């Protein structure tokens, strides 16, 4: 009888979830939309080429040297160059539509060639203007432009091209032997949004339990000859399934539309996903246990969810956090979920990389459930 009741509870929760159009949209469509947006603005896929810095380049000199500089910049893999006037370059930077503006002043080619030959005298000045919110890009542009100017001026001055006394090799490092490994910002953004919205799904189910209590449905359930274990087990099962559906649908879309791949361990990916869904189910149960009314519980639990996903690196990767915050956020379950999914997707790591996140997420699930059981109001009067 316990199994019949258990299955009926799970089936009922799934039916209610799927019959609620708003809940389905929030669970499936919204994370896809936001994940796609964040993935696009944070770099896309490395397999599509590295992201380039947009530069507005104004050539006021118009000579052979400056033309060689412009040609070099346009051919550079790091830059996306738009040749324009000085006024337009400054206007674009001021308005924030472009990160960096480079102005080659009149007489720059002759002046710099002369300065190189004579190793002294007046040196012409290259003007670089930049958006103060984009300081990382300006350093990169300055370095790249220096390289192209040195090549063009040395050639004009007849000076042998200076060679660096060393070579540099760069490689984006992910797991060896993982055929699809490579940073794909969509993998991270869809993991983050999937986790955020699976938490929202679990939160809604927790609040639904409070609604059931208000509407007398809980009384009907408790008056049946069913154990508390069956009731809690049924709720955890339905919350886990719905949370897992939220995450997997989101990831499935990312795999089809944005070439996200589980480059590492599939078993590890599934283990982290299931453990994360169970953690979310525990969180939903906690809301049902601690909440007084659906209205008050919704506000507090939404705030708690947002703080968890923010600190857990679901919005932006935790490596951009200050060092101390990276340590502090280890106590946030979402952090382990994001790290585990990153490890098994674009980092291409094996099953061992998923063990610790899975164990810790299950521990959080157990902790949340234990607190819920201790605080749950079982009696109705």
């Amino acid at each position, binding site marked *: 009888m316990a199994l019949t009741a258990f299955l009926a509870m799970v089936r009922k929760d799934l039916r209610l979830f799927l019959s609620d159009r708003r809940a389905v949209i929030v669970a499936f469509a919204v994370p896809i939309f936001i994940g796609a947006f964040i993935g696009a603005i944070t770099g896309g896929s490395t397999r599509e080429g590295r992201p380039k810095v947009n530069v507005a380049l104004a050539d006021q000199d118009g000579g052979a040297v400056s033309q060689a500089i412009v040609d070099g910049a346009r051919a550079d893999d790091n830059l996306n160059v738009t040749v324009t006037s000085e006024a337009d370059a400054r206007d674009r930077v001021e308005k924030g539509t472009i990160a960096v503006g480079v102005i080659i002043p009149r007489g720059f080619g002759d002046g710099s060639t002369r300065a190189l030959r004579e190793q002294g005298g007046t040196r012409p000045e290259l003007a670089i203007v930049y958006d103060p919110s984009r300081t990382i890009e300006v350093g990169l542009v300055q370095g790249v432009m220096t390289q192209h100017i040195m090549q063009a001026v040395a050639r004009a001055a007849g000076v042998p091209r200076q060679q660096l006394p060393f070579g540099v090799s760069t490689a984006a490092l992910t797991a060896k032997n993982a055929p699809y490994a490579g940073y794909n910002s969509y993998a991270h953004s869809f993991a983050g949004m999937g986790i955020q919205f699976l938490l929202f799904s679990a939160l809604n189910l927790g609040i639904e339990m409070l609604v059931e209590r208000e509407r007398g449905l809980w009384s009907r359930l408790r*008056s049946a000859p*069913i154990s508390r274990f069956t009731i809690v087990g049924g709720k955890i099962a339905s919350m886990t399934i719905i949370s897992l559906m939220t995450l997997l649908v989101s990831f499935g879309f990312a795999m089809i539309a944005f070439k996200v791949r589980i480059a590492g361990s599939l078993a590890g990916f599934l283990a982290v996903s299931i453990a994360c869904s169970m953690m979310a189910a525990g969180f939903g149960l906690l809301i049902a246990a601690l909440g007084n009314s659906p209205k008050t519980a919704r506000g507090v639990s939404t705030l708690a969810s947002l703080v968890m996903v923010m600190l857990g690196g679901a919005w932006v990767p935790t490596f951009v956090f200050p060092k101390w915050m990276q340590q502090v956020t280890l106590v946030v379950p979402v952090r382990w979920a994001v790290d585990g999914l990153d490890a098994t997707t674009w980092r291409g790591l094996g099953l061992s990389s998923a063990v610790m996140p899975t164990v810790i997420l299950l521990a959080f699930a157990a902790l949340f459930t234990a607190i819920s059981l201790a605080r749950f109001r079982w009696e*109705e009067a």
Partner: protein
Amino acid sequence: MLEVRNVRKSFGSLVAVDDVSFAVEPGKLTGLLGPNGAGKTTTVSMIAGLARPEKGSVLVSGKALSGDTDPLKRKIGLVPQDLALYDELSARDNLRYFGALYGLSGQALERAMHAALTLVGLADRAGDRVKTFSGGMKRRLNLAAGLLHDPEILLLDEPTVGVDPQSRNAIFDNLEELKRRGKALLYTTHYMEEVERLADRIVIIDHGKVVADDTLAGLYAGVTPGGAKSLESVFLTLTGRSLRD
């Protein structure tokens, strides 16, 4: 069939129910009356297994009810005051869920659903979502959900709140039929005329204690001898006229 024996329940310093005893016989309807906060709902909750008595016991067929999974709970059906139904599901899906809570499945569940829906006159609307139902239809489905597992005892907590006279009359007909089938019914309400019409015995509680337990005729004779012959006057005589907000 159902015997409530010296039950007590308190919440902090508030004693909600104190030494309450009464019985409900098969084929009879017992009306449980009391002002707001008198302890009616707490008493019903203890009988339904939703709350555990601190003292005393609830006996079903002579055996004490104990624990969440006590099979004796199968003999009790609860019809809560709230419309305890899922609006987004159909009437059939609601009953399928509530039946499964009592272990019903397959053909047995289908037969039970058909019988319950036919009794309350909703068989032709079984596939419709509850949110499309009128208040009276929801009340009747609420009753059907409590009857699904064919309990011997039915606890009805204000089952006619907010329904039109037609639906109320239909519910009364259902209750008369259930009495004829030998069910023991415990009925709480604030509507005195309902109890006058339906009840074989009346229990009045106030401040958590039983202040009267008799037939309607017995109450008239004992409480207002020679006075007004209405249950409301009996009720007000026993519980006073001060407001209970």
